[in-house]
């Protein structure tokens, strides 16, 4: 097992167990999209564009009662250690689905029957926790697009590393550690909209891990809010 925690209880990058990686978020940088956001979190660099609500072009995906939400999580070929082939991988297809399911509960899709909302997530550079950062950013982009929402969705992974529960796994901690547990949550209602886990946890550890994630999500949510406010004032000022 690789040594990921030093004697002073610090992680490889100097963080404490409950500390997030450095992050920054911006809203509204794409001109042609209805809404957009950019996030950096650790080595992740992720751009999200939202288009819609717009008329559904294909009859296949139309719903008479609400907008259809579509989501594509996509890694650029140069975003990974080894060049990623441009065809969508099974991993990307699954992540696209769980991200869509994590975001939909926050949206009032009933207000836009027969239309479609597209979320395009482009991972420019990937690091551990890219699905969480994608959700956090997509949430900003949806708000930026003016789509009515019950709450923002904030997401982060908790993991187990050398036996310790730690917040916001880096790539190395994800690969060399024991557990990866990404969680997305709407903090107002406390509803968890994404949860996946790889690796072994006891029931007690699992319960603690959720609490750790909640604390991290709270911090991220504050930054999401700030990014939206900043965008708003920029628009008012200009």
């Amino acid at each position, binding site marked *: 097992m690789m040594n990921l925690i030093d004697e002073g209880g610090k992680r490889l990058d100097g963080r404490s167990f409950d500390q997030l990686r450095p992050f920054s978020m911006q809203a509204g940088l794409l001109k042609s999209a209805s809404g957009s956001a950019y996030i950096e979190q650790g080595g992740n660099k992720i751009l999200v564009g939202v288009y819609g609500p717009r008329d559904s072009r294909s009859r296949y995906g139309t719903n008479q009662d609400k907008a259809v939400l579509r989501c594509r999580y996509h890694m650029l070929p140069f975003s990974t250690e080894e060049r990623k082939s441009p065809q969508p991988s099974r*991993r990307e297809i*699954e992540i696209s*689905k769980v991200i869509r*399911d994590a975001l939909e509960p926050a949206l009032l899709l009933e207000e836009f029957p027969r239309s479609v909302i597209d979320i395009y997530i482009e991972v420019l550079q990937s690091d551990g926790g890219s699905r969480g950062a994608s959700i956090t950013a997509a949430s900003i982009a949806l708000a930026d697009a003016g789509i009515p929402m019950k709450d923002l969705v904030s997401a982060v992974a908790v993991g187990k590393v050398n036996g310790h529960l730690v917040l916001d796994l880096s790539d190395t901690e994800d690969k060399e550690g024991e557990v990866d547990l990404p969680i997305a949550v709407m903090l107002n209602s406390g*509803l968890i909209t*994404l*949860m996946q*886990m790889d690796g*072994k946890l006891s029931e007690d550890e699992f319960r603690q891990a959720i609490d750790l994630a909640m604390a991290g999500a709270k911090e991220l949510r504050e930054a999401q809010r700030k990014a939206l406010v900043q965008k708003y004032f920029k628009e008012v000022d200009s």
Partner: protein
Amino acid sequence: MKGLVLDNLRRDQLTDAISKGRRLDGRGMSEYRKLEIRPGIIPKAEGSARVKLGDTEVMAGVKIEHGKPFPDTPDQGVLIINAEVLPLASEYAEPGPPDEDAIELARVVDRGIRESKMVDVNKLVIVPGKEVYLMYVDISVISTGGNLFDASSYAVVAALMNTKFKILKQEENGSVIPTGETSELPIVDLPVSITAVKIKKGIILDPDVEEESINDGRLTVAYDQEGNLCAIQKGQASGLKVEEIMEMVKMGKEKVPEIREMIRGALEKNG
């Protein structure tokens, strides 16, 4: 995913019953439908099993080949799990390559097996770094009657436990040939997948197709032999409260021994 849409009357009946702690088919909240596991039904495959869980029916087959290991795990055999929903499995199914639902199914089953460390892949090496065993596990869904995740997981677990394969060796000239002996897979755990759904405020295990169509949140958890959680997948575009999740985990954990015994029993009867 296209699929069943219940009419309001039926929906209300189902939710009413569940709110009173009952289910329309008479099952208890934690009760599984009738589970039949028949291992070894495809003799041509190195391992196989057919699982019926109520109206849900799934087959899994294991083919063992050999080839190069993945670069980052040069000293481990390779496990590859695929799933397809056969077009005869329901009126909504269609022929074609696996869609996102089939891909998710394969990956969730895969994680339960892989993270439990059920198969000791370190023992599936022919020449370290060069030639290892490749385990291709294919899930074919024959009837979609609800709770595909659990049924598929049981089929794969049973098929792996049922597997017998030819031991291979590498000759001096590089070609890989059978030694003439056969072996079972090095099985070191027996993970059990349990799926719970919330319907209004009630939580039930093993949803059938109607229950699944109106669920307000799904959680699939795989448990290893020591009672640890080893893989989780939340499903459905909906939210679950922490208490609900913990309740689901608890109900699941209590159910595991019964299911594990059924899988073991089916294998022993067959073996």
